[in-house]
């Protein structure tokens, strides 16, 4: 092979930030390659995928509406990811948050109207945390792998949701559709941009991003999580409580996912349905990594991911493409990102000749350098 991967002496700062951008560019290029053989005009396809969704107020509202759960969950997950605690089950934790909040809205009636929504928010966060507490307990008590446990619990959580809306929580007046009653107005986030569906839950997401930043940057607990992720041996040496860090890492993701669940049922949906999320919990993992586990990066990445969702819907309508196109783009993006990340710590060298020839040239070039 004439190309060789060489480790860099210091990891490249440029590549750390350029890598997501290159990955986006390569994803677009791949999109071009996909569209062409399908007989679609690439220009029209790109326009309907990336531009059409944004050329009106409603579209912009939708962009922010879909970005807010993504940035919220990604922020929560990034806290654990920094400490090498891999919570893959945000989708299930989101479902449990939605269930808990719906339970408050439908069956617990707080005494005053203005208390309904705050109670739902707290219940949703607790629901997500409860679901994340299971992998945390099994990991700290029995050393069970949190990746597998949290992922498997996602399916349990989604089945629990399905059971509730098909059974005990089904709306008696709902013509046997698997759905709960619609929530009262008190149980819904107010719309903050007329003419769109954008609601106040985005403030929770933005506050969470800010809080996550302060926590990781300024708090001693956040520092301990970072140390545990970078050098486990140093964390043990310093005497950081590993059990506590696992709990914090998992509960942060669970709380964020639970809050995102509240944002969905008390936002655009307004009731409990068998499906409350188009895969935000999984997409947020990609958002967290594309955003470099950094707050600003996560906000930008969530907007991009949201655009992929909208573009996918638009592409279904305008281009007759299957809805799977969104998933394809998500996967392609993550693939390119991981590929580009290699170049943060490595660089590619062109080595066209045999080592002996190369050595000789090196002698000449060194001599040239030395003569002046």
């Amino acid at each position: 092979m004439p190309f060789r991967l060489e480790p860099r002496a210091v990891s490249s700062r440029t590549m750390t930030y350029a890598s997501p951008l290159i990955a986006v560019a390569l994803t677009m290029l791949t999109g071009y390659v996909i569209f062409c053989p399908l007989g679609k005009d690439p220009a029209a396809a790109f326009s309907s995928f990336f531009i059409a969704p944004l050329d009106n107020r409603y579209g912009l509202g939708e962009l922010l509406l879909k970005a807010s759960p993504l940035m919220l969950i990604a922020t929560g997950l990034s806290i654990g990811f920094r400490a090498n605690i891999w919570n893959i089950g945000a989708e299930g934790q989101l479902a449990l948050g939605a269930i808990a909040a719906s339970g408050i809205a439908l069956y617990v009636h707080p005494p005053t109207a203005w208390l309904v929504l705050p109670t739902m928010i707290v219940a949703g966060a607790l629901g997500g945390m409860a679901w994340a507490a299971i992998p945390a307990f099994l990991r700290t008590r029995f050393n069970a792998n949190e990746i597998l446990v949290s992922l498997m619990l996602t399916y349990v959580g989604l089945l629990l949701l399905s059971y509730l809306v098909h059974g005990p929580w089904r709306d008696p007046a709902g013509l046997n559709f698997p759905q709960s009653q619609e929530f009262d107005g008190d149980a819904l986030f107010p719309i903050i941009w007329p003419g769109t569906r954008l609601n106040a839950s985005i403030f929770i997401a933005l506050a969470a991003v800010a809080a996550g930043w302060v926590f990781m940057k300024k708090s001693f607990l956040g520092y301990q999580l970072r140390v545990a992720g970078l050098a486990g041996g140093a964390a043990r040496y310093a005497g950081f409580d590993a059990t506590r860090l696992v709990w914090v890492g998992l509960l942060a993701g669970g709380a964020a996912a639970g809050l995102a669940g509240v944002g969905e049922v008390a936002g655009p949906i307004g009731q409990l349905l068998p499906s409350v999320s188009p895969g935000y919990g999984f997409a947020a993992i990609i958002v967290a990594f594309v955003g470099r586990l950094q707050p600003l990066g996560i906000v930008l990445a969530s907007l991009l991911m949201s655009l992929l969702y909208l573009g996918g819907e638009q592409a279904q309508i305008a281009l007759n493409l299957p809805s799977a196109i969104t998933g394809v783009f998500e996967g392609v993006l993550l693939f390119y990102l991981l590929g580009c990340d290699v170049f943060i710590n490595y660089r590619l060298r062109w080595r066209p000749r045999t080592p002996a020839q190369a050595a000789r040239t090196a002698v000449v070039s060194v001599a040239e350098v030395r003569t002046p």
Partner: protein
Amino acid sequence: MQTPRLELSGIRKVYPAVVANDGIDLRVMPGEIHAVLGENGAGKSTLMKIIYGIVKPDEGRILWEGRPVAVASPAQARQLGIGMVFQHFSLFETLTVAQNIALAVAGKRRLKDLTQRIVTLSERYGLPLDPRRHVHALSVGERQRVEIVRCLLQSPKLLIMDEPTSVLAPQAVQALFGTLRQLATEGCSILYISHKLDEIKALCHTATVISAGRVTGTCDPATESTAAMARMMIGRDIPAITRSAPPMNAEPRLAISHLTHRARDPFGTHLDDISITVASGEIVGIAGASGNGQRELLAVLCGEETVSDARTIELCAIRVGRLGPARRRELGMCFVPEERLGRGAVPRMSLSENALLTASRQGMVRRGLIDDTVVRTFTQRCISNFAVTCGGPSAPAKSLSGGNLQKFIVGREVMQEPSVLLLAQPTWGVDVGAAAAIRQAIVQLRARGVAVLIVSEELDELFEICDRIAVIAKGRLSPAKPVSQTSVEEIGMWMSGLWPGAQLPERVDAVSA
């Protein structure tokens, strides 16, 4: 004139951050024991890896018995007749000696024949070895013999020994030298890598001194003085250490009594009935060849592993056996670990962030939030007090040289005013200048009434700074003897586990029962 066995000219190797070898010339004659002398990081290991075919040089020529060669791989090096014994052994613990050697010997051979050859060879060179024993049951010295016999089976013409004595007791060193001299008289050339000047004086015919990737001198070690060789190696004289008298009214600070602990690692060393006391203003050293329970003892003392009986470890008269590292730090214990990167410091974090790692109780955290000003001031003071050469408090830990990072870590622990300080191999892999500074800092702690416990494999270092020395062997600890009443020879003898009143290992069962 005889053809040199190996001749290197203009060897150059550049790594992304450092020029490891910068035009090195070296000539080894048949039957010559040739020392390559240099500090850690001078480029000795890179040079040996080039000769053994692990690393390709960027420039330069290698002549093997007068013919130019390009050594592409260790296998090719072995074919030429080059053998290498590494500082860190590569043996499978669960296999027998014969099986381990069979894995490395080219060609299919019956294990029985091989066993016979191992026995013959080991007898001939005075390397007693039982081929049927499992490697995990062997001492470090015996493991080294396995590595040497493995090389000798290939009948090498050049044997490279990388810091072979760092794991050996003084008596074992003499035995090894006997073997090496015998090999040399039979015509085998030996490249002997070391930074220990007295050993080189005793053994080698020629010495090539390397500093910062360049050859700084060649000499006959038998006639050259150690001071002159040290100057060639570090470019200046080694500073002497000044000692002060220990304070009066010493009180016991760290008391270990009848500590017995089973190692977590199945091939680790169990600690057996260890007792020792360290008083304020006292420096106590624990000597011993590596792998005799040092790692396990330190894990138990710093709290990363807790013991079932809290009474066995007392810190300032408080029973701490069952407390974790954080609680023990609160009670005034500080610890300098053996591994700097990844344990003593987080490589990718800045020095400031690394100060926070253990010094967080110095007012750096208020209501759960980090006070950056306090952290920065502490870091700045540590850097200037301990003369740490670095790019400032925000320089990442991994950008520092080993010696400077160790100075920083020692400084960080010392500045917390501990009542008890544990140090593991405090100057391992540290350049001579930094090592002297670290030892000086340790000695100064005596005057401040700190109780210091040092675990080290460097006997010279222990004799230089300790008040009392004990020896750990096979998980048991000898009585501690005042330095003035013992000698390197006596401590060396104790390292094999034979000290007056030493009990037989059977006692392990009696204690745990």
